[in-house]
């Protein structure tokens, strides 16, 4: 049986709260405790296999970040023990160890050395780190002169070039913007494909479900459920919906929002990134931004025209219909349904979808459109509230949707 990558035995973590700071000093010098416990992680036992992608979900304050910090060795557990079989790279706070006065070159050596690399090992990966980060001659300038994009590119490049066996990711599956965002996403996917162990902590249930082999749901510092992603996420999402319907509804079927999407193209392979050119929404053949529909009678057709970019695989498209309160009613995506999009004669990507005899019940609804990578994970662009639907109905049915049904004798 192969050795597991991570084993936790009753690992717990509580933070100490002292009424007076002097009590802390007294404790350090005398060994006698004078604090109140703030429990962040109750005793947790967990085993993560080599090559496994483990998702960690839970509400804010559930203990996710604490668990990741313990595993990244940045805080010590209060009790229990854990073993990690292999080098860990943590994408938690990128560039935290950078020294602003030192050059990028010096910071590469400093950060790698902190991660435990020897001089010779750093020499071997140095060139790869620099070329991946795409910061050119800036590598010889102090990092305080870097733009935020350059800073994060260099930090990400260092974190992922130390040849980790275990990758810890907190929320973001990509960093930077434009082409680098896509490139960093690819780099993380390369780790997955190479059979590296990944711990992925996220609030995006969609990404967790797509990426992870197993999911652990943390609640109040304990494991509430662990198992197949679909089982755990379904139960978790249901609880979230009941306890905080508005909060849950903000999460769309596609991916997280990116407000300042920029088409900066810096990777030699990626010449240009996909982007949405036009979205046409028609009801019964009539194109408009605001539509009136009738339950069970109107056909809704959506056409998305996009520039497929250069140097990247053909993108995918997802659409979602939300209610007036923001809750997602339904969604459809080309990746999920195995549809491969093609380019038209002008070289533009085209995605067309029809919802025949739309069965939404009375109310106002909105359409969102997202352009994603070929895996349906990495978001290139999203357009919210592309169109508004005002649905009328002839009958007295209540609810959101009229399901196909038949009364039996």
């Amino acid at each position, binding site marked *: 049986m192969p050795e597991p990558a991570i084993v936790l035995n009753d690992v717990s973590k509580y*933070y*100490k709260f002292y009424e007076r*700071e*002097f009590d*802390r*000093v007294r*404790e*350090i*010098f005398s*060994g006698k405790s004078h604090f109140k416990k703030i429990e962040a992680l109750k005793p947790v036992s967990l085993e993560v296999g080599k090559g496994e992608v483990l998702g960690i979900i839970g509400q804010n304050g559930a203990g996710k970040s604490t668990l990741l910090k313990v595993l*990244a*060795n*940045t*805080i*010590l557990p*209060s009790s229990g023990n854990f073993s990690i079989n292999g080098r*860990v790279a943590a994408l*938690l*706070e990128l560039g*935290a*160890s*950078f*020294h602003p*006065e*030192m050059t990028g070159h*010096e910071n590469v*050596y*400093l950060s790698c*050395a*902190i*991660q*435990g*690399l*020897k*001089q010779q090992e*750093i020499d071997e990966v140095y060139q790869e780190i620099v070329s991946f980060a795409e910061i050119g001659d800036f590598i010889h300038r*102090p990092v305080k002169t870097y733009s935020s994009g350059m800073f994060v590119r260099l930090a990400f490049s260092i974190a992922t070039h130390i040849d980790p066996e275990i990758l810890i990711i907190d929320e973001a599956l990509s960093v930077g913007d434009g082409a680098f965002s896509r490139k960093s996403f690819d780099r993380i996917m390369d780790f997955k494909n190479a059979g590296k162990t990944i711990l992925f902590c996220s609030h995006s249930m969609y990404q967790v479900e797509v990426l992870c082999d197993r999911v652990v749901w943390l609640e109040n510092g304990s494991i509430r459920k662990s198992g197949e992603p679909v089982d755990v996420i379904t139960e978790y999402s249901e609880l979230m919906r009941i306890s905080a319907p508005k909060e849950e509804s903000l999460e769309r079927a596609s991916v997280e929002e990116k407000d300042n999407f920029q088409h900066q193209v810096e990777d030699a392979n990626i010449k240009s990134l996909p982007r949405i050119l036009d979205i046409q929404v028609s009801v019964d053949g009539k194109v408009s931004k605001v539509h009136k529909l009738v339950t069970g009678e109107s056909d809704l057709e959506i056409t998305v025209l996009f520039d497929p970019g250069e140097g990247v695989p053909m993108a995918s498209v997802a659409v979602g219909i939300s209610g007036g309160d923001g809750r997602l009613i339904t969604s459809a995506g080309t990746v999920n349904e195995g549809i491969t999009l093609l380019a038209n004669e002008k070289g533009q990507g085209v995605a067309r979808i029809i919802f025949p005899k739309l069965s939404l019940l009375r109310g106002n609804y909105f359409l969102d459109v997202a352009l994603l990578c070929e895996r349906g994970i990495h978001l290139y662009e999203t357009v919210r509230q592309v169109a508004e639907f005002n649905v009328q109905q002839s009958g007295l049915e209540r609810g959101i949707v009229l399901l196909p049904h038949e009364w039996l004798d």
Partner: protein
Amino acid sequence: MNFVQGYARNIWSGFLTPYRSVFSHWSLYRILVKRDIVNRTSGTMLGKLWPVVQPGLQMLGYWFLFDIVFAMRANRGPGYLEYLLTGMLPWLCIAEILGRSTNMFREFSSLYRRNPFPLEILPLLVMTIPCVVYGAVYFVLNFFLGGAERALMSLMVLPMFMLWLLPLAMILPVLGLFIKDFTQAIPFLLMITMFLTPILYFPSMLPDGVRQIIWINPFSDLMAVVHGVLQGMEFSLINLVRPFLIWLLLMGPAWLVFKRSIPHIREVL
């Protein structure tokens, strides 16, 4: 017996662990020393000359004040200026180490807050640069004062202080981090300690009653050894034994305190 064994174990591991850790994180240690030099010199016109120029200027200041202005003279033995320079330069190094140790955890927080950083190398790190810089100046100074043999002997002085200061370099950062008043008080404490150490004056200049008091201070013993070895002044075995016993007394608890403080340090900032 258990207490003694435990105490001895703490002394042993407190002394060895930082050196072992530096050895196993040699690449990191080297880079951090370099980073330290960058910190001191970046943005200055003299750049990397400053670490050497600064102690030189300080020595010049003390020489001007005590040799020219106060016209202090020795009754017998070596000249006052030679005596002053021989004791003052190591003291400046000690003062810098102790002052910086007090602020050590704050200064290096960016390194260990979100990284698996070996904290036990920090006490040695804050001592390395002053020892190297002051050591170089001290070597040159002693060469001019007494030739090559004395210069070579002087190379042992600052490493000796570095060994002796290790327990203080473990306790002071903890006090400095958690008791902010201590950081404020340290310049005063260092000044008092300097006055209680025979650096600016010969012990023979003190009245008989007061002369005994300065031997409460272990730095007086260490300075007596320094002056004895480099200038041929009188010193005895007790000047070595006393600091060594104090070191033994401090090393174990210092390591225990340092170890206990690590979880606090990672979380408090």
